[in-house]
């Protein structure tokens, strides 16, 4: 016999789909089948069942081989490393729950570390812009029920957030959007003809790196001012047409992704996009929302901001929280050689950082806490596998629209494995002993 668990939350992307069905064995130890989730989400669930999964911490040996160690030894190495370091970097946090993040922040405070999350290579620039401009946003439910003008700018949900379009942004029939796709006008801004762009009513094929100019031109068009004949490879006529379509809607939303946050202009692109959203609110109701990647990167920003006052790139080395991306952000810290220990949890800088920032990790005392084998676990001195958050343990996560959703445990982790929170709590308690704090 098998059991079917309904309303399971998918711990893959920032869409945090909450309608997944999981079929488990009668004893709750094996995960057999996943329904409703996208291909990536399904893989995430099924990967917890991999036969070659590492279930105990391992230390990298001099000759490059791995030696299995106990969780207690792993706790000792991690606590000693953080206690000795003069400027440790604690990076990641986006694929674990808010409870673990909060314990992590206690550790960061005790060891006066730099803390950062994956926004550093993702929507960190968005966070800079929203500090400068504010963020007129809404929930995904409002998008589903109200939005009749949808813009995807520099993002490709067809591949990166596969169920976003069917659940919220294009196809669903909502309260005021009864005709589904027919009641929405879709504008996609992308230099490439992506699968999302193929569905668009208007595809603005912007010249690469000219998003800032195009956003500016849309604002100029809204004010009815002079425009050059062509901006970013798009005719003034087409820009004015797009501006009119945006103005004529009842409720509009701009979704944006890496294409604007990590290309030239970075935070300025988002700054201008938020300003465009504000301008559009003089004509109709408009909102803007970042397409957050990891399922709980938003939560990490929330927990950092709640406990330290800043959403990422926090530097606690002087005993108080400081924040200045460029100085306190992970890639800068690593490439400039500012840190002397690396702690990674719930993310994979080895795969996502430039190689000049990955090389230093291999030369530093380093810990990688991750259920998977990743390029980061490969270069770290200690790899601590943990239970899959959202599959083998629950916990709080934040969706891309800042709505908190509790993840669910659906299956037991392999025997004797700790969760992120359990491991971090042990590290925190040992660190307190080492630092002489009660």
């Amino acid at each position, binding site marked *: 016999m098998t059991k079917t668990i309904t309303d399971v939350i998918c711990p893959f992307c920032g869409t945090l789909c909450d309608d997944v069905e999981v079929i488990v064995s009668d004893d709750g130890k094996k995960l057999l089948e996943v329904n409703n989730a996208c291909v990536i989400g399904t893989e995430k669930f099924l990967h917890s069942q991999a036969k070659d999964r590492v279930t105990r911490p391992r230390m990298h040996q001099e000759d490059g081989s791995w030696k299995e160690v106990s969780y207690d030894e792993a706790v000792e190495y991690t606590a000693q490393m953080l206690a000795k370091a003069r400027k440790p970097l604690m990076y990641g946090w986006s694929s674990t729950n808010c409870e673990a993040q909060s314990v992590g922040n206690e550790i960061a405070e005790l060891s006066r570390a730099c803390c950062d999350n994956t926004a550093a290579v993702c929507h960190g620039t968005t966070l800079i812009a929203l500090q400068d401009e504010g963020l007129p946003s809404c929930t995904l439910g409002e998008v589903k029920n109200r939005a009749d003008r949808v813009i995807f700018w520099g993002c490709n949900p067809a591949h990166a957030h596969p169920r976003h379009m069917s659940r919220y942004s294009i196809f669903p029939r909502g309260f005021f959007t009864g005709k589904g796709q027919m009641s929405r006008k879709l504008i996609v801004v992308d230099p490439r003809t992506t699968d999302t762009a193929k569905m668009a009513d208007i595809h603005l094929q912007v010249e690469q790196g000219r998003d800032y100019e195009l956003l*500016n031109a849309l604002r100029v068009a809204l004010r009815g001012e002079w*425009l050059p004949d062509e901006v970013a490879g798009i005719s003034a006529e087409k820009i004015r047409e797009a501006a009119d379509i945006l103005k004529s809607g009842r409720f509009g939303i701009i979704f944006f992704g890496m294409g604007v946050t990590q290309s030239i202009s970075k935070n300025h692109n988002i700054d201008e996009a938020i300003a465009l959203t504000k301008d559009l609110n003089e004509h109709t109701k408009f909102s803007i929302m970042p397409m957050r990647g990891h399922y709980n990167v938003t939560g990490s920003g929330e927990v950092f901001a709640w406990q330290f006052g800043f959403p990422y790139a926090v530097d606690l080395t002087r005993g108080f929280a400081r924040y200045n991306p460029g100085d306190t952000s992970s890639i800068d810290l690593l490439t400039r050689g500012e840190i002397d220990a690396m702690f990674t949890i719930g993310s994979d800088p080895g795969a996502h950082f430039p190689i000049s920032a990955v090389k230093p990790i291999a030369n530093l005392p380093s810990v990688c806490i991750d259920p998977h084998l990743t390029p980061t676990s490969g270069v770290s001195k200690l790899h601590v596998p943990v239970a899959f958050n959202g599959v083998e343990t629950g916990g709080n996560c934040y969706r891309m629209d800042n709505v908190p959703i509790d993840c669910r445990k659906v299956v037991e982790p392999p025997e004797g494995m700790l969760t992120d929170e359990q491991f971090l709590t042990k590290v925190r308690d040992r660190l307190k002993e080492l630092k002489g704090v009660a």
Partner: protein
Amino acid sequence: MMETVTITMKNLPALYLEADNISPDVFAGKTAEQIAGLDVFEGNTTQTLGKYFEVTGKAGATAADTKIVVKGDVKKVKYLGFKMTAGEMLIEESADLYVGAWMKGGKITAKKNVAAFAGLAMKGGELNIEGDAGNYLGTAYRGDWRGMSGGKIHVKGNAGSDIGMYMKGGEIVIDGNIDVHPMTHAEGGRLVVKGNAKSKIGGQSLQGDIIIFGDIEVMMPGFKPVDTVELEIDGKKAKFSHFIGDMGERHKKKKGQVMYMNLYKKL
């Protein structure tokens, strides 16, 4: 009477030093020994300045009477001339982040390059950089909407991106070339670039002057050509095409006249 303190790097830090005490204001009235005992920060540890620097000479009675000469490798030293209000500082080698940050008065001369965030939120004084400057020269601190509001920055080499962001007053002169995004969100002040500029010039700016002698790769669509003017700069007259912007922004009126950012590009 002007007195000179010379600090020379003798033991390089393993990590980076936060040396926000190296300024005429803090040094004033102190002997070499007292100066060597000042705090500097390496990571999460507090050390003395004398651990890394050899200190000779003595400071004047006030900041205005104090000159600091910084010798040796300071590529890993941040915050030189932090919040200084008077006096002088000469930095002989390339320095790291935040040179002259929040500076209010006095004069800093950097003989070589400075890294990012130099002259951050500067209010007054003079910052001369004889090499290149990094990104974020003379901008606001993160999240602040009040950038550089007074004083003068002169860079003999090139400067990076995002210079003069949220600028409100003062002047930045770059003899070489600049990267993208000068004077974003500016509400005043003046930027003179003798070399070339790339793109995103004056985006979202409200007021001020940008004068570019070299080429502009791509103009912002929000800048509208208005006329041709003759300007006199450094005693030389030249003709410039005049643009106003950013037309995407809402602009204030002063004495019945709408105020714009003026962009002058040499013909």
